[in-house]
Structure formats: structure tokens, C-alpha cells
């Protein structure tokens, strides 16, 4: 009997760890803020200390509620995770975003759009090479014409 209860508790614990790892990460971040606040002097540390303390309590309360299975039906529906499947497509999307922003940082907005957009269409849509290139160049052209030529905004042109 005791073993059964322990197994149930540990499996629930494992499930909470899996389903709530994001909440755990955010709670740990709040703990980081709390620890950091102790290193700040005077008024600079008081506010973050108070807020971080409350946030850590709220984070643990969320986890405790999930662990005890005390979420009501509607709460479970609202709190249950994920619409985003962690598959190859999701990973590719994240990689593309990082790549596009890094490219923009180094080479500027127009060059970033010219290179990153066709790669996006090739990797993440069903478009062929020609239409991917065409769409990518159109996006860069659209941004350049509308924002630089018509609106007269300075477009970031990279580090070099």
C-alpha cells in the first residue's frame, strides 16, 4: 500500500517535472533575482528583493498546486501545456529565427531579409527554389521601398 502511494507520488512528481519545466525555470530565474538583490545596496535592492520574494513564493505555489493535483477542471484546461509540438519543424523554426536575427545584426536588415527569407521558404514551406527566392527577394524589396524610399526611415546596414 505504502509502495503504491510512493509510486503514485513519484510518478506525479515526474509528470509535474516534465509538464512544468518552464514554470520551474521561471521560478529559478526569480530565485536568481532574489539572490542578486542581496548584493545590491540600499533602496536599489529593496524593491527587487520584495518582488522577487513574492514571485518565488508564487512560483512554488504554482508548482505545489500542480504537484498536489489540486487544479480544478477549468484550471487544468487553462494551465495544461503545450500547443507547440517539440518536433523537427519547431527546432528548425527556432534555428531560423536565431539565424535571421544574427544575419540582420551582422549584415543589416535588407541583406538579412534577402538571405534569410528564401531559406525560410525552402525549409519551412512547400515552395520550390524559384518561388522561395522570388518571395524572399520580394520581402526585402518591399521593406526597402516602403520603409526606406517612401517613409524615409534609416534602415540598419550592419556592423561593417
Amino acid at each position, binding site marked *: 500500500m505504502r509502495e503504491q502511494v510512493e509510486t503514485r507520488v513519484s510518478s506525479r512528481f515526474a509528470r509535474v517535472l516534465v509538464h512544468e519545466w518552464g514554470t520551474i525555470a521561471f521560478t529559478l530565474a526569480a530565485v536568481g533575482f532574489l539572490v542578486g538583490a542581496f548584493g545590491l545596496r540600499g533602496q536599489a535592492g529593496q524593491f527587487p528583493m520584495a518582488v522577487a520574494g513574492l514571485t518565488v513564493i508564487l512560483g512554488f505555489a504554482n508548482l505545489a498546486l500542480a504537484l498536489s493535483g489540486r487544479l480544478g477542471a477549468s484550471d487544468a484546461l487553462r494551465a495544461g501545456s503545450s500547443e507547440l509540438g517539440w518536433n523537427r*519543424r519547431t527546432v528548425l523554426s*527556432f534555428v531560423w*529565427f536565431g539565424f535571421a536575427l544574427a544575419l540582420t545584426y551582422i549584415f543589416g536588415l535588407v541583406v538579412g*531579409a534577402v538571405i534569410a527569407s528564401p531559406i525560410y521558404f525552402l525549409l519551412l514551406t512547400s515552395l520550390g527554389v524559384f518561388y522561395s527566392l522570388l518571395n524572399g527577394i520580394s520581402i526585402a524589396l518591399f521593406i526597402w521601398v516602403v520603409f526606406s524610399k517612401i517613409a524615409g526611415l534609416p534602415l540598419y546596414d550592419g556592423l561593417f
Partner: protein
Amino acid sequence: MLESFLSALAAVTTPEGLMLLALGTVVAFILGVLPGLSSTEGMIILLPFTFSIGLNDSMILLSSAYAAGFVGGAVTSIFLGIPGSSVSLATMMDGYPLHKQGRTSYAISLASVSSAVAGIFSLLLVALLLPYMEPISLLFGPVEWFAFVVFGLVILSFAGETTMLRGLFSAGLGLLAGTVGLSVMAGVPRYTMGVSDLWGGIPIIAAFVGLYPIAEAVFMAASHPRALGQVSEPAAGSEKSHGRQVIEGIQDTFRYGKALSISAVLGWLIGVVPGVGATFANFMAYLVVKGTSADKSKFGRGDPRGLIAAEASNNATVGGALIPALALGIPGSLNTAILLGVFMLNGVAPGSNIFTENLEVTWVILLATAFGTLLASGMALCIGARALAPLARIEQATIVPLIVFISCLAVLLARGNPFDLFLAFGLGLIGVLMKVFRLSRLSFVIALMLGPLVESSFFQALSVGRGSPAIFIQSAVANIIWLLVFGSVAAYIISWVRAKSSTTDALPERSSR
């Protein structure tokens, strides 16, 4: 007052003003029609333009977009049976059945006209209340302001996308993110990890862009392109002429005046409460109109009253949400937070001076929102069902690069610092995680925006009270607000416990079968 109104009207009706009005309306309307995008993304995408124009023109552009996106969202709900944005969730309940019955133009007509009428009504109400808003805002010192922000964050946590605890937790995280940078009180760098680019804090535009368009774009890119709903064909032979259906829709909107007026008033009142917003109003008005109707049998099967209730209420929140934003500088929604962000970038602090020094801008916002609502409703009516259908069919994934690069442009123009791109990317990841784990991005971003102001008002209040925390309960206005805070928390907990116990009661019945 009249002078400010006339100069605002002149500003909106200049050729440049009208062009910006049309641009804001068209962009937000199209984005509203695209599934998954809303007026919020529309406003963020339009942000780059605001860096080359003045405050009045920026407000014309953004305010018209604010209202137009709501009208666009209804079109998707009617065509696809999936909400164009969260504020149109209840719209699809009766809008989609009408489309299936071959009465698409009728449904669009009902949605557009009720949106326009309720939107204008809510803005007129704000205009009538303008003379009384300055005295009200003067009642708010640091103590009252602090209490009201706490109230706003608590309400935001209840009515937001998630549970109360998660909402409060998200608000706490947002306040913590707001402490990054130089301390407002001591001028000491905090949590900057030696990066001088972070001394100015997390820029609000990077936060908007990261948490919303970039996080949404990740979801769009990651979802399979064919996962979108298809536009279903209406029932064969039941399609009347477009013009006849439009006229019928206009007539019926006014025929169901009770539903229209209840929803408009309810939407406006819900809009005034910070954070509750259009999504809640959309559902609440639907339920209230259904509850007060004698014949409830047609609701959910294409009842015009359901569609009127949903659309009138979400547009009526626009005017209501402007009140706390303009009078107190507390954004009630993400859209008003963007408006306030642009105010701040232009060196204008919302609050009582908005009714004295910057009254013209207030009128510009009201007029541009009104014209934007009318223009978007007119567009929906005139373009017609057949022309709008292809827009609703566009695959989300194909517009991702455009959204990402225009968002990058907004981030780069806000401070001129390319480092902000990394911040936007980091906040994008946080936004994705928050969406996946059902934490409230809205609570986070509004708390981040208000964080420095909360901290300074907290210490100002303490210094007024010579260091005694008793100052927070020595003002009548603050005490009323604290009562509202504790009353709302208590009401939420009671309803949660009741829901929990009713679920527990139901379990043995199920197991005994």
C-alpha cells in the same frame, strides 16, 4: 476644449493625416483578417513609421489600427469558424453558422455595423467624460497610483489568458524584468551582467516585439502550413445578392437594438477596468445577451443577436480602455500599452497633463479611432464576402519572414541599438515558453512597462509618509482601491473553491456508473 478638438480634427483631416489613417486601417484590417494575427501585431508592424513622424501623426496611425484590427478579426471568425484573434472568439459561434447557411454578407454586415455603432458610442462616451477626467486623475498621488497599479495587475491575472496564480507569477516576473538597468532611486546598475546596453533597462518596444509578433511567428512557422482551417463553401443556392444581404444586416443590427445597447455598455465598462479587455467582453456580452433573450434556441446556430453582442462589445472596449490609459497612464490592454509606449518615446507622460498640455493628442486618438472603426467597417461591407475569402485563406507560415523583418525594423529604430535584436530574440523565446506553459504574456509586458514607475511611486509614497508603510492605507481613494483588490481576490478564491468542490462532488457519481 473646443479649440483642441478643432485642431485635432484639422490634424486628422489633413492629406497626410488621412493617408496615415487609411494606412493604419488597411494594414490592421488585413492583419486582423489573417488568422492568428490581431490589431496588436498590426500596431507593432506600423511602429517603424512612427519614428519619422510627430506624435499626432503617430497617434492617427496607431489609433486607427487599434480599432480596425477588431473588425478584421470578425471576418476570419465568420469565414473559417476559427477566431481571427482572441477578441473574436464568441463571434464565430453565430457568425460561422450564418456563413454555412449562405448568409456571409449578412453576417459581415451585422458584425461591421454593430462594431461601428458600438465603437463610436464608446468613443463618444469618453469624449463626454473628458472634462471630468482631469479632476479624477488629480486625485491620484503616488499612494493611489501604486494601489491602482496593484489592482490592475491583480485583475489582469484573473481575467487574463491563464489562472490567477500564473497571472500573478507572470506579473511578478514582469516587474523583475523591469528592475533590469539603472535603479530609478539609487542610480546603481542592477542585473546588467556588465552589459552597458542594458543600463537603460529592457526597451519596451523590444519587449512588445519579442513577446508578441516574434513569439507568434515561431508558432506560425512551427505549425504545419496545412493545419489552417479551410474556408468552407456556403450552402448551395442559399446565397442572396451581396447588396440585399448587406441592407438586411444593417436593418437587423438596429432591429436588435437591445442586444446592441447591452453589449456596447457592457463592453465599455469592461474596457475601463485595466487588463480585463476585449476577449472577456466578447464572451461576457454574448452570455448576457443570450441570458436576457426570451428565445435562446437559435444562439449558436446563426442568431444575429449573438453576432451583434460579440462584435459590439469588443469594439466598445476600445473607448473604455483609453480612460485608465490616458487619465492614469495605466494600460488596460496591450494596444493601449503600445500607445503609451509611443507617448513615452515622444517624451509625453500620460496623466493629468494629457488633459491640459496635450489635450489635442487625446482628441486625435479619439477621432482617429472613430474614423478607423468607420473606415474598417465600411471596407468590410464594400469589399464583400467573395473578395475577403482569399485573405482569410492565406497560410500563416508564408507571412512569417515579413512579420519578423518589419518587427526587427521597429526594434532597431526605437533606440538605434542593434543589441536590442538579441533582446527581442531572447524575449521571443520567453514569449514562446510563456505561451506554452500558459503564463500570461500580457501581465508580464504590462508589469515590465510599469515596473520602474511602480518602484518610484512606491518610494515616493514612503518618503511622503516619512518611511512609514501606513501611508498606503491613509488615503480614502487608496483604501477603496485596496478593498477592490482584496474583494476581487476573495471572490476569485471563493469561485475557485466552489468549482473545485463541485468537481469533487461529481466524481463519485461518475465512478458509481
